[in-house]
């Protein structure tokens, strides 16, 4: 009960200090506000980018291995001239993988190109067309919002059917359902049989919202699927319980045998996995996080000095009140807690302002940057923690000094 009374009294003192010395308090709190704002903004941006990246990587499939010509990462001694002469993955290699690879749950041959899509007088240029074999829906994570996926016959016979992204569907068919409608892909008529569920912007690019998916056998009539420029790839998903490393080991042996490589010859293919991308981004995010931590740390430090300063002034101004309180029987801890609570309250107030600014920024920045930016629970907790900690640490010394004052000397002080 006494703590509640103390708490209430301290808050009243703090509010009084705020009201009486508005400018002084505002300038002192500004340090904490800027510090909390700097740290939490950086952490929020890093967390949001990381979250978006993980989402993008997950949509690519974290248990999928990509058989390609080029590796996704390379060091400074990267022998690109050797890789130039590598053959691109071939559609026939997919059959061998599906037949012989024990660790593969499913696999799909995929190529990506840019085309123009038309419907009546509307057209969209540079649309990403994904030409994939039938098991694409088993290696790539996506959902169909309307319509259906290709049937086995449609895929193998190369029927002119397509699944389009949400953005394309809304652009070409703003007033009615696209299902069953004929669109023109590079001048060739294709029936829309499905629409991808809206995914949103992807940090790695390649969001299904702006893609058109057609069977690879149909794509043969539109483009040269063996072209080097289309960067064909074979996506292989591991069976449950099989790790990516095991799958890569098996695929390495299999691809070498398929391509009849000499035992001493280097691999002429790259086996990529999504962890390669996320690992690269992890180090970048760590660097940004540390930079924000250092910048924000200094701001917080300055803010802490500001709070300590205001508390020393507060103790000096109220010395005779402290003396009266002590002479009326107030214990040392009562005076100590009174000033500590006041200091924490002031610091917390600065922190709340900082968090509010970050929150407002997250509301507006999300639309500007085209990605979801949110103030996470952990960052809110961190903001409050830092505020309370700074209030406690910077307010303790003045508060302890006040609690140790001699009542007679304190009353005499003017």
């Amino acid at each position, binding site marked *: 009960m006494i703590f509640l009374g103390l708490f209430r009294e301290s808050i009243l003192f703090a509010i009084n200090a705020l009201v009486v010395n508005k400018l002084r308090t505002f300038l002192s709190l500004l340090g904490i506000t800027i510090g909390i704002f700097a*740290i939490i903004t950086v*952490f929020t941006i*890093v967390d949001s980018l990381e979250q978006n990246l993980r989402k993008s990587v997950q949509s690519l499939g974290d248990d999928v291995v990509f058989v390609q010509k080029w590796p996704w990462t390379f060091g400074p001694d990267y022998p690109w001239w050797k890789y130039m002469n590598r053959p691109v993955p071939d559609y026939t290699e997919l059959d061998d993988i599906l037949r012989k690879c024990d660790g593969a749950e499913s696999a799909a041959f995929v190529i990506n190109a840019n085309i123009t899509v038309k419907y009546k007088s509307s057209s969209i240029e540079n649309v990403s067309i994904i030409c994939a074999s039938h098991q694409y829906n088993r290696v790539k994570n996506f959902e169909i919002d309307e319509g259906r996926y290709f049937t086995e016959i449609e895929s193998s016979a190369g029927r002119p059917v397509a699944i389009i992204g949400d953005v394309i569907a809304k652009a070409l068919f703003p007033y009615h359902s696209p299902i069953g409608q004929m669109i023109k892909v590079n001048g060739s008529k294709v029936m829309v049989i499905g629409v991808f569920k809206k995914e949103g912007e992807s940090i790695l690019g390649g969001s299904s919202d702006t893609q058109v998916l057609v069977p690879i056998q149909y794509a043969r009539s539109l483009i040269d699927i063996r072209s080097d420029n289309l960067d064909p790839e074979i996506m292989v998903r591991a069976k449950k319980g099989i790790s990516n490393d095991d799958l890569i080991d098996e695929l390495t042996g299999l691809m070498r045998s398929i391509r009849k490589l000499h035992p001493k010859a280097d691999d002429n293919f790259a086996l990529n996995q999504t962890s390669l991308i996320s690992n690269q981004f992890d180090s970048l995010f*760590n660097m940004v*996080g*540390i930079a924000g*931590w*250092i910048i*924000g*740390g200094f701001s*917080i430090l300055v803010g802490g000095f500001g709070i300590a300063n205001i508390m020393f002034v507060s103790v000096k101004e109220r010395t005779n009140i402290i003396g009266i309180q*002590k002479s009326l029987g107030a*214990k*040392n*801890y009562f005076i*100590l807690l009174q000033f500590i609570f006041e200091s924490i309250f002031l610091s917390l107030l600065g922190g709340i302002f900082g968090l509010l600014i970050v929150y407002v920024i997250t509301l507006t920045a999300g639309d500007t940057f085209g990605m979801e930016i949110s103030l996470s*629970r*952990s960052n809110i*907790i*961190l903001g*409050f*923690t*830092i505020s*309370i*900690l700074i209030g*406690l*640490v910077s307010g*303790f*010394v003045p508060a*302890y000094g006040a*609690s*140790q004052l*001699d*009542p007679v000397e304190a009353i005499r002080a003017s």
Partner: protein
Amino acid sequence: MAVVVRKRPVLITIVCIIGFIWIVFSLPAVFSPSIKKLGDWYPALFGMIVASSFISYIGVWNMKRWGCSLFIITFFIKEIMFVLINDISYPGIIVSVFFITSLMAYFKGMDLNL
């Protein structure tokens, strides 16, 4: 009311100065990305440990018994946290035990009041 002023031994002064330096370096660690990654509440817990360490050093600096008691309690809470996150530092434990031993040696001569 007479204020009790006790002379601070050199060893306690050295322990406190080392402690204050440790606080200066630990304070930014509270909101470091590495602590944050451990969990939502770890920065808060670690912050509480750093703050109570700081308060305990001020108590010890002023030759108060509550400073020693708070230091020992904080030490155990800190070590339990380090065990939970599997980050036990044996040199850290040795230094802390040395500090506690030093404080205990002068405990009787310290002030009982706040």
